[in-house]
């Protein structure tokens, strides 16, 4: 699993981290039951604040992709399809933002395909 972040991107660092982990889950690079590296370790490797990593983990937990337990760290739940869909939505949203679409306009666009 590769996590790369770019300080010059407009996207917040915690989103970038969450996005890369999500992509690794969707791609099967990390599997169900596998434990992610400790937040402190990732923060040290990426030279970011510990809370940035914890916030990324929190986002993935809220999406139901990982489980966080005190003393056991973060365990991947391995919902590949769910992760894949979320990742696609994220890519779509950031592309729409880049092209200057408003939220309402994007929703209208998506509705056309439902």
């Amino acid at each position, binding site marked *: *699993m*590769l996590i790369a972040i770019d300080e*010059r991107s407009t996207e917040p660092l915690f989103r970038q981290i969450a996005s890369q982990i999500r992509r690794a889950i969707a791609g099967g690079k990390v599997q169900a039951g596998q434990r992610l590296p400790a937040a402190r370790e990732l923060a040290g490797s990426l030279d970011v604040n510990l809370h940035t990593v914890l916030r990324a983990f929190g986002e993935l937990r809220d999406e139901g992709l990982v489980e966080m337990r005190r003393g056991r760290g973060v365990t991947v739940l391995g919902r590949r399809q769910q992760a894949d869909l979320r990742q696609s939505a994220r890519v779509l949203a950031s592309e729409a933002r880049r092209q200057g679409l408003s939220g309402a306009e994007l929703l209208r666009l998506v509705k056309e395909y439902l």
Partner: protein
Amino acid sequence: MNGSGHAARRALLGIVLPVVVIVVALLPLWLFRGRLPQPLATHWNLHGQPNGAMPVMGLVILVTVLAGTAAAGMSVFAWRRNAGRREISVALAAAGFLGGQIAAVNWLTVLANLDAPGWRQAGHLHLPGVLLTVLAGGALAAILAWLGRGLENTAPAITGGMPSAGLAPGARAVWVGRARAGWVLWAVTIGSFALAILTSFRAPVAGVIPCIVGLACLVFTSIRVIADRAGVRIAYGPFGWPVQRVQLADIRQATMLHVEPMAWGGWGHRGSLKIMKRAAIVVRAGEGLRLELTGERTLVITVDGAEQGAGLINDLLAAGR
């Protein structure tokens, strides 16, 4: 793998190698055929005095059977359809080692009998000298057999350029990979702990050794490899301890390779970076990361997704230069 190269290797292993081993082993009997007593002294006691004899023809048959079996056994091992290049090389070296030892024993035997009027007057053989000669003969033959693998096609293991993870300039990154051992290592681990418990009932002290073996195996049931701007960290076992570190400054380049455990001396931590300049951390067969280090040293680590890991390490190295 190229077909004719494979056929040549099979012929070498199956026919040439056993014949060469037998000829080398029997050569002294033919060279000194007029100068040997009949029967020959073939056994010596711990004081180095001959205490057993055998007719020359008996010795010829015994050596042929022993050397032939050793070389042929190894050939069969490497003959399998799916034997890898390294497996074949190892089988060749092992056959050479066994055959070389048998040949060395026969040379010693014949030389001790040289010009003796009867087998009881044969020369004395002393254990340390015999052991040294036998080991040297085996080692020499193993090296020769290893060199003989030149018959194989020597295509480089890595084709194409250095892997890259496409890290953007100025970006920061970490790569996390892991490898898990197959059931064999788990079976040995659990077996060792079971043995430790069982023996502890009889004598608590007796449980210590299987317990140590079990712990040593447990450490290699899984590894986690982390690559970042500091270098590479390898965390062993379910507790992520101990941790081995390689500084980024010590790495020259990283590539991916396919690891055959037997070619690296088996499972666990093999070799030594300090002494042999080559070490391998092997928990399973398959995909692995190869780190070329400063001072012509090589570290190999079995890990999933090694290509991406190697790519990031190369990118980090390029960014730091």
